[in-house]
């Protein structure tokens, strides 16, 4: 790794802390971002010669703060500051002073920075774009490529989103316990959105696929700030478990490989092991939450050496708990999958039929219903369900998966209509 690559990684790592602290100083996102940029440029100039500072984030905050103050002064908004406030980035000792002032604030600074991206008036995709720009520091062009829009369009979107955030005004005082918990829950949802935006990409070469890694990094960051929060452990574990299957999810033709047909040797053991540890830690707290339950379900798949060894009764139980905690037809649909494995297709089909109103526009509903109908031998109905699923498929891979099942139906001798 070259010097520049190392510095780049250090700047990326320090970004949430530094921009978060600068936002607290300046209470203006644009000034905070500009100040951080300025500090990064200075780092690129001085770090290769002098070596990296002991604490890159503290250094960047110190330098960024001085640069931001300078900017404001130039714009005439502030009186000139006394001489001792002038910029000096020569000594780590100065950064150390800044660090002592900032360390106690890092947690709320970073949380605030993530939280402002979650403005309820912003649609999910804009929240994601804003977080990737502000917190992760991705360039507008990278984000634009990921969302398949022009750079100009994405620039405009982000600018508008920022303006909305600025108008909304963010509470800068230290949040109380309840406000902090609310912020954390909102931010967790957004981080999971970022993950899914990346993970749902059928093409792993697409820019957006990297969002999944970015979300995992944000999850680690959050858990580092809130080390005793079992739901953050659950969230990180859940993302790691999904990501662990990345290499096995698609075949060479880019088609989705079902979980039970995946080559488990391709699953990333180090990600699975980390997730299993996190779930064990979370369970010790005795406060089940939806991320923890979803992670526990994913963990049961990860623990099974073969698909046949999957503990379906336990998975069904966990979906039952999830249904109780967070009732949703999609969760019930997933419980039906577990039921079909542990108790057979008939009972599962009964459960699925109760969801026909709620999930009529849902690809997976018709896909599962078709599959269960096929298993119980109601082939004509299965065909109709599969046709409906294909019409609702959002990707060629999803449609292809259903077509393969349709082919099975045809091979079983059902006359083509």
């Amino acid at each position, binding site marked *: *790794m070259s*010097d520049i*690559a*190392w510095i780049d*990684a*250090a700047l*990326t*790592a*320090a970004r949430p802390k530094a921009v978060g602290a600068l936002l607290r100083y300046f209470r203006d996102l644009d000034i905070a971002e500009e100040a951080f940029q300025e500090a990064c440029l200075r780092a690129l100039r001085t770090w290769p010669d002098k070596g990296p500072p*002991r*604490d*890159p984030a503290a250094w960047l905050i110190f330098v960024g703060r001085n640069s931001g103050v300078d900017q404001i002064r130039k714009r005439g908004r502030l009186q000139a500051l006394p001489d001792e406030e002038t910029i000096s980035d020569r000594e780590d000792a100065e950064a150390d002073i800044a660090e002592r002032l900032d360390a106690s604030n890092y947690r709320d600074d970073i949380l605030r920075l993530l939280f402002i991206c979650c403005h309820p008036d912003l649609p999910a995709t804009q929240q994601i774009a804003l977080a990737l720009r502000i917190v992760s520091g991705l360039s507008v062009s990278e984000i634009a490529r990921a969302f398949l829009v022009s750079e100009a369009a994405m620039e405009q979107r982000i600018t508008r989103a920022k303006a909305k955030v600025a108008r909304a005004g963010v509470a800068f005082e230290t949040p109380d316990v309840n406000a902090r918990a609310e912020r954390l829950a909102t931010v967790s949802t957004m981080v999971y959105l970022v993950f899914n935006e990346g993970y749902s990409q059928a093409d792993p070469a697409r820019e957006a696929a990297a969002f999944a*890694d970015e979300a995992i*990094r944000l999850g*680690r*960051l959050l*858990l*580092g700030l809130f*080390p*005793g929060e079992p739901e953050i*452990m659950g969230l*990180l574990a859940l993302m790691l478990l999904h990501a662990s299957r990345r290499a096995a999810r698609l075949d060479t033709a880019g088609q989705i490989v079902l979980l039970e047909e995946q080559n488990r040797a391709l699953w990333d053991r180090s990600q699975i*092991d*980390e997730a299993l*540890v*996190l779930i064990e*830690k979370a369970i*010790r707290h005795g406060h089940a939450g939806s991320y923890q339950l979803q992670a526990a379900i994913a963990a049961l798949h990860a623990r099974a050496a073969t698909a046949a060894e999957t503990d379906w009764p336990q998975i069904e139980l966990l979906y039952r708990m999830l249904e109780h905690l967070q009732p949703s037809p999609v969760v019930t649909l997933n419980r039906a999958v577990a039921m079909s494995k542990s108790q057979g297709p008939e009972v599962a089909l009964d459960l699925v039929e109760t969801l026909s109103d709620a999930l009529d526009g849902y690809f997976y509903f018709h896909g599962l219903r078709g599959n269960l109908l096929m298993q119980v031998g109601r082939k004509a109905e299965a065909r109709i369900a599969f046709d409906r699923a294909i019409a609702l498929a959002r990707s060629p891979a999803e449609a292809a998966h259903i077509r393969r099942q349709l082919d099975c139906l045809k091979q079983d001798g059902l006359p083509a209509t």
Partner: protein
Amino acid sequence: MLYAILCYAHEETVFAWSKEEEAAVMEKLQAVQAPLAASGKLGPVGRLMPTTAATTVRKGKTEPLVIDGPFAETKEALLGFYVVDFETLDEAVAFSRELSAVNPGSSSYEIRPFYVFRPGETRS
């Protein structure tokens, strides 16, 4: 004498590496270890999971407390260790220098000689 070579690093930076950057560093570290391994002097080597995976049991007033997270909140975290059989401290320093040279994420290698060592029986 047996030495533990403890690698400390800025954790957030190391976990911001891309897979390719990570693989490149690991390959270079392997190359540094290879001669020691070949001469039968290299013991167990461990790369630690992030500190978010850590749990600490700390003495409480009555019962020990189980705390989520690492022993100490520090800028640099213990991220890995080597157990090596060296004749002299100089050899241990030379090895640590080599590791340091190829690992841009590391900030320090702490050299700690052993009193007691049990090879252990784990199989995984």
